[in-house]
């Protein structure tokens, strides 16, 4: 087993352990964990059987295996960025709706209680 292969294996296994630990601590949600696990598996397979990477490279017609790896890495990172943007947009919309409802509710409570609220608004977080 060559040195780069060992580095690759250790990295892939490290990634696995990190994901499991994050899931165990409930810091990573399952819906995000899946794609990362698939990536870790691909990294593990690639590190354990480099000949497979060479064969796929030939099959698709890339000049170098590293091109294939960069190509896949680019696609995956792009897909993840898009997913995060979508999630962020959904969160923003929810936060916006909650803020609007909060403003309405606060006014209604003030109206019912006859309280005059002079507190300044909460600072933006």
């Amino acid at each position, binding site marked *: 087993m060559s040195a780069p292969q060992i580095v690759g294996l250790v990295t892939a296994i490290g990634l696995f352990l990190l994901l499991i630990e994050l899931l165990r601590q409930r810091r990573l949600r399952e819906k995000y964990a899946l794609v990362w696990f698939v990536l870790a598996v691909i990294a593990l397979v690639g590190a354990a059987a480099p000949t497979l990477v060479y064969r796929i490279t030939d099959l698709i017609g890339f000049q170098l295996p590293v091109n294939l790896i960069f190509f896949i890495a680019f696609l995956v990172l792009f897909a993840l960025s898009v997913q995060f943007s979508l999630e962020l947009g959904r969160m923003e919309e929810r936060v*916006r709706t909650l803020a609007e409802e909060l*403003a309405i509710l606060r006014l209604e409570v003030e109206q019912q209680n006859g309280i005059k609220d002079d507190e300044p608004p909460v600072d933006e977080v």
Partner: protein
Amino acid sequence: MAADTIAAMSAALPRTLVVVPAWNEAATVGEVIAAIKREVDVDILVVDDGSTDTTAEVAGNAGALVARLPFNLGVGGAMRAGYRYALRHGYDVAVQIDADGQHDPADLPELVAALHGADIVIGARFAHKEDTYSVRWLRWWAMLLLAWVLSMVTRTRLTDVTSGYRAANRRGMAAFARHYPAEYLGDTVESLVIAARLGCVIRQVPVHMRQRAAGTASHSPLRSAVYLARAMVALVLALTRRWDIE
């Protein structure tokens, strides 16, 4: 319009809520509320869009209801909250007026009266020749284009689709309470497209422009170009997006 006509219209006004979105408008919002109260007998809701100045206090002291957003959402957020409040509290009509004093509340009865044949009425600036309100050519061109496309979408002649002076009946309110985009220009152009596609009838009424009581609108060429580009994006998105129709 003669004063007695206004008085007659004012007397016949349906249960109306004037919604004023305000972000750091403490200098003008008090006078805007006072001006509305001088013209018509309506409830006024100021939606304080996360102001860091005394907008909420000034508005409250001037006799308006004040709903405070915990942080700045933009006009779209403030207005959607306003329309939701109007809908829930059983108002027949909701009128949106800017807090900077550029809209003349004297036009309000005419806007509300025009709701007899429409669900949403826009108070269009530039419709009077004597108006001194001017805009740069690029921005003017963008507004013309927007107006042209919006006229096609709404099947009526509109000349000023970016106006923040508008009245809505309960049908219009329901459309705005569900979809009032918070993005740039979404609050004006896109919200109209959405309302039209939800089946609302849209009309416009000419209104008088007043000089902004405080602050100036920025009209540098670069900003106008950016405005045009963003307007196009907003328009294309609005026309191609899908809106769930009840």
